[in-house]
C-alpha cells in the first residue's frame, strides 16, 4: 500500500547540537502522504531528537524542513500543530492531575469565549478512546492515576484529536500488549487510508514489517539508509545498518537449571489486599522466572510487593530462607534484592544527577569508610560498568536526563550489577531498548543467572519472556494462572492463557 504521492514532508541536512553532544548530524528523509514511514536506530541514534525538531519542540541548528514543498521553520509546537503535524512523544508528556479529557485537548482546548466546553471535550475524548479500543478509560480520570499503558493510549488520543496530516509516534508500542498493538495498527491503517502520513518509531522489527511501508535507519545522528521497503528488507541487513555489526541470535542459550540449586527467593501466599492475591513463587539460584500477563494484570504490583515497596496484606517473602520484614525496601535491599522499576524516569533515576551517582546510589556504603565516600573509586567502578554495558554517550559525569531512553535503562541495570544482588527483579527491562542493546541485556541477565543470581522478569513481550526465562508464570487479574518451564509452552498458549476471559 505504498502510495506514490509527492513528499508531504522532506528533511535535508538536519543538525541539532546539545551542549557536548551532536545529537543530529545530517539527517535526510522524506515522508509521503498515506504512508507509514518507520524510523529505526539504536538507542541514542537521535530518533526522538528528530521528532522533537519536526514537531517544533526543538529548533534545528542547521538544515531544511520542507512541508508540502515549502521551506518552513516550526518555531514552537503550536506552529507545527497548526500546519498539521501531531506528535506522540516517547516521554509521555501528559500532565498528571488533569483529567484524561483535559490532557487530550490541552493546548487546543474546546472553548467558547475562553470557557471550556467540557461536555463536548468529554464526548469527543470518549469517541477517540473508543476508537483506540479503550472504552474502559474514563475521560474524567486523573491521568496520573492511569497505568503507563493507558497513559500511552491517552497520548495517542491526544495526537488523533489534532486531526493532523502527519502523525509522529515515538515508540508507542513499548508499553502496549499485543492486543492493544493490534488495535493501534488498525487505527494507523484507517488513518493512512485517509491520506494521513505516519512516522513510526519502534525497536520491534516485527512491528515494522507488519505496519511499515518504508524504513529510514539512523545511526549516530546520521541517515545511513532511507526509503528501504519495510517488508522486503532483511532483518540482518537492518541490524547491520543500525549497529554496524552482525547479530544472529537475539536470545542467549539457556543453561539447564540445577534442580538441586538452593531456593533463593521464596514467596508464599502474597496478597496486597487489592490488586492481587495468593501469589506463590520460588526462584532458584541461577534461574530466570518470567511473569507474563496483560498490562494491568498486576505484575508490577507483585514485584513491588516482593521488594517491600508496597505493603503486603498477607503472605511471606523470604530470601535465602530468611523471611523479610513486610513493607521495608531497606530490608529487601540488605537481603540482596534489587528492582529495576517499570517507570525508570519517575521511579528509577535521579534525572539531574551524574550517571555514576545513579549507579552507586544503592551501594554507597561499599564505597565509604566511616561514611566518607571514595569518589574516585565510585567513578572508576561506574565507568567500567557503563563501558561493559555500552552506555552511550560515555562519561559517568554526564547528567542522566540527557541520555536516551535505552541508555537510561542501562544505567538502572548497572546500579544492581554493581551491588551484586542475590535476587534481581526486572520490570520491563527492555522497554525502549534497541535490538543490539536488548540482546546485550539478555546476555547480561543470563550471565547473572549463571553466576547464581535469582532473576524475576516482568515483560509484556511474550517472545522475550519465553526466550529469556527458564520458567514462565502467567498472571491474569492478580492471580497466577500458570506456572511451568519455558520450553513446555509456546507463544500462542501463553497468549491464550493471558487473554482468557478477555475479548481476544
Amino acid at each position, binding site marked *: 500500500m505504498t502510495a506514490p504521492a509527492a513528499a508531504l514532508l522532506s528533511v535535508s541536512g538536519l543538525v541539532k547540537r546539545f551542549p557536548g553532544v551532536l545529537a543530529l548530524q545530517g539527517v535526510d528523509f522524506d515522508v509521503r502522504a498515506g504512508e507509514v514511514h518507520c524510523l529505526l536506530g539504536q538507542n541514542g541514534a537521535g530518533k526522538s531528537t528528530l521528532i522533537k525538531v519536526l*514537531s517544533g*519542540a526543538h529548533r534545528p541548528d542547521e538544515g531544511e524542513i520542507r512541508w508540502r514543498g515549502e521551506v518552513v521553520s516550526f518555531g*514552537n*509546537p*503550536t506552529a507545527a*500543530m497548526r500546519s498539521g503535524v501531531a*506528535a506522540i*512523544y516517547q516521554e509521555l*508528556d*501528559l*500532565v*498528571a*492531575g*488533569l*483529567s484524561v*479529557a*483535559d490532557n487530550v485537548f*490541552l*493546548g*487546543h*482546548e474546546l*472553548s467558547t469565549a*475562553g*470557557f*471550556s466546553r*467540557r461536555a463536548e471535550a468529554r464526548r469527543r475524548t470518549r469517541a477517540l478512546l473508543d476508537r483506540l479500543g479503550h472504552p474502559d478509560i474514563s475521560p*474524567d*480520570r*486523573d491521568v*496520573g*492515576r492511569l497505568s503507563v499503558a493507558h497513559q500511552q493510549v491517552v497520548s495517542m488520543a491526544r495526537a488523533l484529536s489534532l486531526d493532523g496530516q502527519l502523525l509522529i509516534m515515538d515508540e508507542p508500542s513499548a508499553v502496549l500488549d499485543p492486543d492493544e498493538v493490534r488495535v493501534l495498527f488498525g487505527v494507523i491503517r484507517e488513518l493512512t487510508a485517509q491520506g494521513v502520513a505516519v512516522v513510526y518509531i519502534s525497536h520491534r522489527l516485527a512491528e515494522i514489517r507488519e505496519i511499515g511501508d518504508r524504513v529510514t535507519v539512523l545511526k549516530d545522528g546520521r541517515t545511513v539508509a532511507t526509503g528501504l521497503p519495510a517488508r522486503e528488507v532483511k532483518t540482518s541487513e537492518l541490524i547491520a545498518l543500525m549497529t554496524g555489526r552482525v547479530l544472529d541470535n537475539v536470545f542467549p542459550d539457556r543453561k539447564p537449571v540445577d534442580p538441586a540449586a538452593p531456593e533463593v527467593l521464596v514467596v508464599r501466599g502474597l496478597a*496486597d489486599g487489592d490488586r492481587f492475591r495468593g501469589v506463590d513463587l520460588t526462584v532458584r539460584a541461577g534461574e530466570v522466572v518470567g511473569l507474563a500477563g496483560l498490562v494491568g494484570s498486576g505484575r508490577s504490583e507483585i514485584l*513491588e510487593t516482593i521488594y517491600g*515497596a*508496597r*505493603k503486603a496484606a498477607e503472605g511471606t517473602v523470604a530470601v535465602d530462607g530468611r523471611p523479610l520484614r513486610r*513493607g521495608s*525496601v531497606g530490608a529487601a535491599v540488605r537481603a540482596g534484592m534489587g528492582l529495576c522499576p517499570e517507570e525508570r524516569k519517575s521511579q528509577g533515576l535521579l534525572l539531574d544527577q551524574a550517571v555514576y551517582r545513579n549507579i552507586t546510589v544503592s551501594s554507597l556504603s561499599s564505597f565509604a569508610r566511616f561514611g566518607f565516600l571514595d569518589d574516585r573509586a565510585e567513578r572508576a567502578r561506574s565507568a567500567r560498568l557503563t563501558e561493559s554495558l555500552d552506555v552511550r554517550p560515555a562519561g559517568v559525569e554526564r547528567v542522566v536526563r540527557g541520555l536516551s531512553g535505552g541508555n537510561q535503562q542501562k544505567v538502572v541495570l548497572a546500579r544492581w550489577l554493581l551491588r551484586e544482588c542475590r535476587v534481581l527483579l526486572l520490570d520491563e527491562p527492555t522497554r525502549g531498548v534497541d535490538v543490539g542493546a536488548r540482546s546485550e541485556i539478555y546476555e547480561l541477565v543470563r550471565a547473572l543467572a549463571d553466576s547464581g543470581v535469582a532473576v524475576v522478569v516482568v515483560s509484556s513481550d511474550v517472545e522475550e519472556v519465553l526466550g529469556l526465562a527458564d520458567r514462565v508464570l502467567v498472571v491474569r487479574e492478580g492471580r497466577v494462572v500458570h506456572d511451568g518451564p519455558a520450553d513446555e509452552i509456546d507463544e500462542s498458549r501463553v497468549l491464550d492463557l493471558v487473554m482468557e476471559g478477555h475479548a481476544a
Partner: protein
Amino acid sequence: MSEDTAAVAAQQQRAPVAKDSGSGLSGLLGSPAGRNTGLVVALVLLCVGGVVTAGDRFADVDNLLTILRLAAVIGVVSVGMTFVITGGGIDLSVGAIVALASVWATTLATQGIANDTHWIVIVFTALLVGGACGLVNGVLIAYGRVVAFIATLASLAAARGLAEIISNRKTQIVNVPGFAAFFDASVLGVPVLVVIFAVVAAVGWVLLNRTTFGRRTFAVGGNPEAARLAGIDVRRHTVWLYTLLGLCCGLAAVMLIARTTTGSATHGGLYELDAIAAVVIGGTLLTGGRGTIAGTVFGVLIFTTLSNVFTLNNLSISAQAVAKGAIIVVAVLLQQRLARRSGA
C-alpha cells in the same frame, strides 16, 4: 496508592491525591465525601469550639460577619495566590504590593484627582499599581528566569521601600467622599467587602475550573515541559498568573484602604505567609499542578475563625500561637486521613 508511596508523595509536598476533575458545583461547596471534608470538619470543630467557649458571642450574626470581613482582604490575596502556586510559582511580595498599592492610591495627588473626578480613581490606581508590580514579577520570573522565590523576595524589599518613600512613612488618611460610603455599605445585610471576596472567589473558581486559562494553569504548574510541547506559551502564561495576583493585591489594597480609611507602608505585613498558608492548607500543591479555590477559601476561614475564637476567649497571644500551631497540624492530618479514605 500504597501506604509507602503516599508517604513519599507527602514528602514531596504532594497532598493525597484527589480528583480535580468533574467536581461540578460540589467542588465549590466541598462535596460531603470529597476532598474538602477534612477542612470542613476542621472548620466545624473550630466553630463548635467557638460556641462552647464563647456561646452567643460567637454564634452571633454580627460576629460571623466580623469573621468574614476579616477574611475578606487576605482572602482576595489568597485566591490570587492559588493561581500562582497552582501554576508552579510562589510570590513573597504580596504584602509589599498591597502596601505599595494602598500608599500610591492614597497620596494627596491621587486623592486630589479623585476628589475632582470620582473616587473610582483610587480603585483604578490601586489596581494599576498592583497589576504593574505583578507584571514585573512575572516578567522577571518568566523571561528573566529568576527563581520565583528570589525574584519576589527582591520585589518585597523594593516595593516596601518604595511605599515608605512615597508615603514618607506616614499613614495617609483618606478623605474622599463616596469612597468610604461605598465600601462601608451592605448588600442585603452583607458588607460590601464580604461581597467582593465572594465575587472574587466565585470568579476565581470559574476561571480555574471552567476556562482554558485554568486548564493551562494546571498544565503549566504540573508539567511545564508537557505544557510547552502541547503548544502552550508557558512564559506568557506565567506572566499572566503573576499579573493576576498583582491585581488581586491591588483589590486587597482598596479593601484595606476602605477598612482602615488609610494607606500605609505597613499594610499587608506578613500577608505572604498568611496567604501561602491558607492556600496550602486548603490543599493546593506547593509544587504546582493541583489547586483548589474552595480549599483556599476554607483555609482562610479556618485561620480567621481561629483568631476570632481566641480573641473571644481572651487567650494570651503566646498561648494562641502554641494552640494555632497544634491546630494547623491537626487540621492537616485530619484532612489527609479523610481525603485518603474518600479519594483512594
